[in-house]
């Protein structure tokens, strides 16, 4: 699976690059608009190590951001699943904050948290949490009567149990969403770096864009893609493992 994931990524990536190069040849574009294969390769060789380190540093933040947002989404999803006043209140809050483009509230975040690691993490988590939230909310607000009935009539139902039941019955869906959200955590971290940081691959991309250096951008995208493929492969594997453990403990 992991292996397949990686070579499929490679296919997609090179198809994309080929498309760009085809465009270059067709329209007779200079290296400034679309860099030639040679210069992409040179940039790759030159920047590989540095960019890889940046990507890994980004990945580190992304992982923490993802964990944070999973917790956040679970918390909000569990509270927001209720049709109570407070439940809908939390839901409305969670939704509205998401509607605001991060860039617009980033200044407020920086005022509140300073511009260190915390802000970056928060931005990454905010980009990542919402899709998780939607799924968690969808799953958590749908009763599984055949299982829950007993606990209700015996007065044993607690919210923890309810959450556990619904999570377990939707483990497959949750796993899909959580492993997919790795992607968002990564994108979120990159955006955060783009806005705020002076490290990480988002920062490198920002500089490359300032310098109109598409070759660097392409190399960065390549490394992001590879790293993400591996990370997601791992996550899926962990997901499988958890499912097996929980289903056969």
């Amino acid at each position, binding site marked *: 699976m992991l292996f397949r994931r990686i070579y499929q990524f490679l296919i997609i990536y090179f198809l994309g690059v080929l498309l760009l190069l085809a465009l270059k040849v067709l329209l007779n574009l*200079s290296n*400034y*608009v679309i860099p030639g294969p040679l210069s992409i390769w040179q940039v790759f060789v030159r920047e590989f190590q540095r960019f890889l380190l940046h990507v890994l540093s980004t990945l580190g933040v992304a992982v923490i951001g993802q964990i944070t947002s999973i917790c956040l989404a679970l918390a909000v999803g569990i509270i927001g699943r209720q049709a109570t006043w407070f439940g809908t209140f939390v839901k409305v809050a969670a939704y509205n904050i998401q509607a605001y483009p991060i860039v617009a509230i980033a200044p407020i975040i*920086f005022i509140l948290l300073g*511009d260190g690691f915390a802000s970056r993490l928060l931005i990454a988590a905010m980009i990542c949490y919402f899709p998780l939230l939607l799924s968690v909310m969808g799953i958590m607000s749908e009763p599984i009567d055949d299982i829950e009935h007993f606990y209700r009539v015996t007065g044993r139902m607690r919210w923890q149990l309810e959450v556990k039941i619904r999570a377990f019955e939707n483990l497959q869906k949750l796993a899909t969403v959580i492993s997919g959200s790795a992607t968002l955590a990564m994108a979120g971290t990159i955006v955060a770096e783009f*806005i705020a940081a*002076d490290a990480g691959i988002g920062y490198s991309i920002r*500089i490359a864009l300032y310098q*109109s250096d598409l070759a660097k951008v392409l190399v960065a995208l390549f490394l992001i893609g590879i790293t993400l493929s591996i990370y997601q492969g791992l996550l899926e594997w962990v997901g499988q493992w958890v499912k097996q453990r929980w289903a056969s403990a």
Partner: protein
Amino acid sequence: GSAEEKVNYRLKWRFNTSVVGDVYADAHGYFEKEGIDVTVKPGGPERDAIRELELGYAQFGVASADQVIRALSKGARVRVLAQLFQVNPLQWIYRSAQPPITTLADLKGRVIGITFGGNDETIMKTILAKAGIPEGAVTLFSVRYDFTPFYRGKTDLWPVYRNSQGPILSRKLQAGGEAVSFFNPADFGVNFVANSVVTSEKMMAEQPDQVARFIRALLAAWRDALAPQNAEKALSTLAKYDPETPRDIQGEQLRITRGLVREDDGSVGRIDVAAWEQTEAIMMEQKLISAPVSVADALTLGK
């Protein structure tokens, strides 16, 4: 030529006072008078006029000198038609309460905001090198679009566009009881060229007449827009294109823009070859290009 010639003109920046001549030309029929149908398109940081020239999305554009030089170094066939800003508007704001910067040595010990990867980084590093200030003697602070670190005194100098952001910030801080000053690299001999009008070599070769008419119309518009007696007309035009900025601020912006673009004799668009060569040299020094590009060859001089 016929009035049917349609061309796109891609600006470097969105519609604001920095492009007053461009919108003035658009609003008051300067291009029609030359028989060209020009669509003036606002720019932005994600825009690149030189790319669009090649892709055929635009026939004329505004690009900064570093973009031109980078493009040349990568084989783009781009030509500079006119240099709009004689003085680079990219300057640093600082509170007047701080010791004034009268010599470059005064920078020592300050916290200086720069946008990593941006032109301000190039310029500031050139200045530091020129003044022989080692990297450790100043603190470079990574800048975003959010001014809070400057507001809250975490940085002493903050890069701004003198003519557009300058008046806005000055006013804000003044309202808070603080006066501000600007540090202008040009005052210390660093002339890093800013926005210029460009077109492709192909246009130059195939439609020299159209190019001539375009630049004639454009420069006339800039000249008129910046003429003090046309200030009201220019401001009314701006109000249409840039409703986001209050008119009094626009007046201030226009005044400053005039000082950066217009020469004493009222002319605009002069290509300052020495400044271009200095810009290229700086970029060589800073390793932003790997080999000289002979930028002078891309400049369209003489009229």
